[in-house]
């Protein structure tokens, strides 16, 4: 039909436009990272250079910020993944009338603008840590507050990711282990935790990345300290330099490698599962012939 051909053409055109919108700015930025002029320009391309990467490497503030970002990211992962796990388990066991309120409280950080989480974290902990001189000196720091503020909403991501897998857990597995003599804690360590492991791994990755790239909450909670993103924000505010493009190129490259690795791993896993199924089918056939 003619109209369907037109529709198809339009759809193709639209998809191209969509990805142009999505990738265009990133591609232009990437080109400026390798162009010589000190104002980040894509065209005309005046000469290939890696000097902006070198400049980035020598940017002391950014390197300090990077280190802090990694520390905060790891801190958030260590706090949020166990919290997400505990909350998903409590969600199933909590008194049924309290469940919807509990759910609301746990996902409210996802519905709250990041700046507000940052502000409330600072206001609350300033007074809470300020109760004693010791706690103020030890904990009232940008890194600690950033971990606390970010953990507030990252834990909600972790909860949702882990809970999605937990709902697929077959309760009969728990009962089977109990029936064979396992205690409840043994069921948790031997059966439930291995089952949730993939979800906890992806929760860890998402937690680290969300922490690493967070700006809205961190910009308040970081106080006088800095993370890579807040340094980046300061630099962007002051002016534009191709060094920022160079940083973006590095992040894009890392994401690309990560995404492709993930895809390959997933394919390998699927192929393995397919092989298992094939073997089960063969066994099934053999058995039917015997019976």
């Amino acid at each position, binding site marked *: 039909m003619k109209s369907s051909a037109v529709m198809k053409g339009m759809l193709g055109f639209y998809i191209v436009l969509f990805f142009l919108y999505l990738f265009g700015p990133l591609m232009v930025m990437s080109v400026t990272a390798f162009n010589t002029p000190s104002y980040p320009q894509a065209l005309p391309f005046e000469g290939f250079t890696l000097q902006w990467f070198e400049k980035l490497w020598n940017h002391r503030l950014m390197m300090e910020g990077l280190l802090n970002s990694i520390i905060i990211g790891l801190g958030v992962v260590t706090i949020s993944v166990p919290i997400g796990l505990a909350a998903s388990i409590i969600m199933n066991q909590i008194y049924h*009338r309290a469940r919807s309120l509990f759910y609301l409280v746990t996902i409210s950080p996802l519905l709250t603008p990041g700046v507000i989480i940052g502000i409330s974290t600072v*206001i609350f902990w300033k007074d809470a840590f300020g109760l004693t001189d010791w706690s103020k000196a030890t904990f009232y720091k940008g890194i600690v507050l950033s971990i606390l503020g970010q953990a507030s909403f990252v834990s909600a991501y972790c909860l949702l990711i882990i809970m999605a897998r937990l709902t697929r857990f077959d309760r009969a597995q728990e009962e089977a282990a109990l029936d064979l003599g396992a205690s409840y804690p043994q069921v948790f360590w031997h059966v439930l935790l291995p089952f949730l492991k993939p979800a906890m791994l992806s929760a860890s990755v998402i937690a680290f990345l969300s922490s690493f790239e967070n700006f809205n909450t961190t910009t308040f909670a970081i106080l006088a300290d800095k993370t890579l993103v807040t340094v980046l*924000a300061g630099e962007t505010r002051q002016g534009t330099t191709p060094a920022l493009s160079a940083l973006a190129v590095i992040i894009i490259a890392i994401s690309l490698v990560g995404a492709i690795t993930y895809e390959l791993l997933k394919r390998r896993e699927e192929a393995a599962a397919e092989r298992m199924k094939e073997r089960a089918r063969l066994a099934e056939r053999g058995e039917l012939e015997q019976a």
Partner: protein
Amino acid sequence: MSSRALVLLVPFLVITAFWLMARYESKLGHDPTHKSYWERNGTVLGIAFIALVAFWTLFLVTLPYLYMVVESFHPRLPPAQRGGPNDFLTIAQYKSFIVSPTDGEWNWIHMGNFTYTIVVSAAVTFLNLCICYPLAYYMAQSGSAQKVRLLMLALIVPYWINEILRAFAVRLLIASKGLINQALMGSGITDVPIDFLGSNTGMWIGLSYANLLIMIFPLYNAIESLDKNQIEAARDLGAPWWKIHRDVVIPYAKPGIASGCTMVFMLAAGSLAAPLFLSGPQQRWFTMTVYDFFFQAFNWPRGSAYAFILLAACITFVMLVLKLFKVKLGEAIR
């Protein structure tokens, strides 16, 4: 006891109330499946779970929020006077949003900023819905598995570029020396570069661009589970494509639409990066006003009050969207 300490008791009262209710109910009837919490988790794990969840829900969520709200009902005082006789409850901070405390005139600037923020965020949300819906539909219903995987991969990579670099990328493109102006001037359409940033067009693009993927994933997830046969059936009955979308796909995808819209709106209204780097000088984003109260005026109570106004607006919007689409919160946030 000061109001600041009193409000901290609220969550504990709520917990106690539920605990008493649960105790009462368990006494009413025998439940053959019932195992006590400690029986089901053991002492060590039981304590660990409760400690983790209590730390999160109390110290990272409810108490800071409540504390911020209480702070917004206090006057701005130097640290030495906090808790003193001048530290009384007041709604002055909220009043200052409507009537300027310095000259007693209507505070058009802040109310204007606020309205502008809400309206533009809603517009950006709608814009992104329109941009993302066709692709989400294509990926979920008509693309081959191989193609969809590839598209997914292509979507996930830019997802992890942070907000600031995305804003930076947009800025490079539309700045007066940027590629677009180069092209416009090169082709003779205009002689002087168009000031996209000053006119806030840049910010619009930045907000839409930053939250594009937030919209597409929930849409995709919702449409994906729709049975293809339903669409086939509608097509067989001779329904034109737009009717199929209006009567079959969109009603089915409601939870996804609600989820995408609430998230995009919240992230846009609460956005700091795009307004900071892409907006012009005339019209400020509301988060920037809040930001300035904290970092330039050092007026935390007033900043808190403004933050709470923003939060209230976000909650209202979420409720409105959920009501409009007749979706429960649990369906929208998954």
